[in-house]
């Protein structure tokens, strides 16, 4: 059987009251990827993550985690860990009690992992969480998520309130666990540089829509930084798209999306840094480059809904 996508969103829309937070979001994350969810503040990152872990239900479209609906399904709940942005914990619980909570509520829980990590970080087990420093609280929350040994780890701005040393500690442990278990990680940030070394998959969210999604290498390979005479812009082949362009006099600089660079040798072609690509898309909110994932087709109700995810037979068709 083919591996189910760790995360599959098809045509997802969500409104907070009357304000649309997400519109027609589709993406597919193969298992084992470390996904960077990038977007400016207010782009809908948190909403998207809440949909993934089942804290919210989409108004439209479908969310599937390993092929199943998240939220109500204990089989999925056990496999998904979530760290909310403010890293909520029960303030009156001690660190040890917080870990006991994790052990009681998760069937794959690893006491060893929790004890090792907290011991290494020197966090006192008998102290109530509300009396820990902010950094220590974050570490406890992250430990709670890690010791669950999830197949999908969803982290909302995990590094936001950590100093550089703590960031390294967190990312180091996260990467070690990823290497060890092969888990899929989705982490959000509004700073792309933060994730450049850790992510191999990028989802760019702008204004409630997925603008760009794909493996980092593919994204890099599919974009070209061009510079040359502005007169050449009109003659660019139809097989590519200008994501963003700047003109200074007769000179034009553009980010060009295409499988291959333009044939005209007068263009100076360079491979853009991932940060430049992200920046270009953020500056052009209408631009999007979506590797269209699987589509949903509604079947008349009454027919037995046999499949909710592609299977081997689907794949081989």
């Amino acid at each position: 059987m083919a591996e189910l996508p760790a995360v599959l969103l098809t045509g997802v829309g969500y409104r907070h009251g009357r304000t649309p937070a997400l519109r027609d979001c589709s993406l597919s994350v193969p298992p084992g990827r470390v996904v960077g969810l990038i977007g400016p503040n207010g782009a809908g990152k948190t909403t998207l993550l809440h949909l993934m872990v089942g804290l919210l239900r989409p108004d439209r479209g479908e969310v599937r985690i390993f092929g199943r609906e998240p939220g109500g399904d204990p089989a999925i709940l056990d496999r998904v860990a979530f760290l909310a942005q403010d890293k909520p914990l029960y303030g009156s619980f001690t660190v040890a009690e917080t870990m006991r909570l994790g052990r009681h509520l998760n069937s794959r829980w690893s006491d060893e992992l929790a004890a090792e990590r907290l011991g290494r970080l020197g966090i006192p087990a008998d102290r109530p969480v509300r009396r820990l420093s902010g950094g220590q609280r974050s570490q406890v929350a992250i430990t709670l998520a890690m010791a669950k040994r999830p197949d999908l780890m969803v982290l909302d701005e995990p590094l936001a309130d950590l100093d550089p040393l703590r960031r390294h500690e967190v990312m180091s442990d996260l990467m070690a666990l990823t290497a060890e278990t092969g888990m899929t990680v989705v982490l959000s940030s509004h700073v792309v540089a933060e994730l450049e070394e850790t992510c191999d998959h990028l989802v760019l969210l702008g204004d409630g829509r997925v603008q760009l999604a794909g493996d980092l290498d593919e994204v890099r390979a599919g974009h070209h930084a061009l510079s040359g005479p502005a007169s050449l812009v009109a003659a660019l082949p139809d097989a590519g798209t200008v994501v963003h362009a700047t003109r200074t006099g007769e000179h034009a600089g553009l980010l060009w999306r295409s499988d291959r660079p333009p044939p005209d040798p007068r263009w100076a072609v360079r491979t853009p840094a991932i940060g430049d690509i992200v920046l270009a898309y953020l500056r052009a909110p209408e631009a999007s480059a979506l590797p269209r994932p699987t589509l949903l087709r509604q079947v008349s109700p009454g027919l037995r809904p046999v499949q909710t995810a592609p299977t081997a037979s689907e794949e081989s068709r």
Partner: protein
Amino acid sequence: MYGVLEFYLDRHAGIPTYLQLVQQVGHALRVGALHPGDRLPTVKEASAQLAINPNTVLKAYRELERGGLVEAHPGRGTFVRVGVAVPAVPDHPVLRDQLTAWVDRAQAAGLSADDVVALVNTAVRRSYPQRTGEVA
């Protein structure tokens, strides 16, 4: 443990991370920090140490494997190939001594460390035109 080799990352070098790892293994072999038969850090160890995506480490190791420098023994780790023929620097003590003496003379002549590196780079580029990177 990976006492044998400790990777480091130059985030501003403009060189892809996996390539930095590849180069560091090659360099370690050249300076004798690694020997044939030695085990490279596991993917977990390396990605934890550098806080980088394990796939990046894997990609570097695959690159090294393709170049014939290392071989993966599933379940045990990745090892420097026993039969690998590296022009290891330790095998040329005379050349090293001569270079050390030359650097001493350059220093005595009032050249700065950057000047020395520039001179060496120029010489390397002349003799190894196919190579692109800088020495330091």
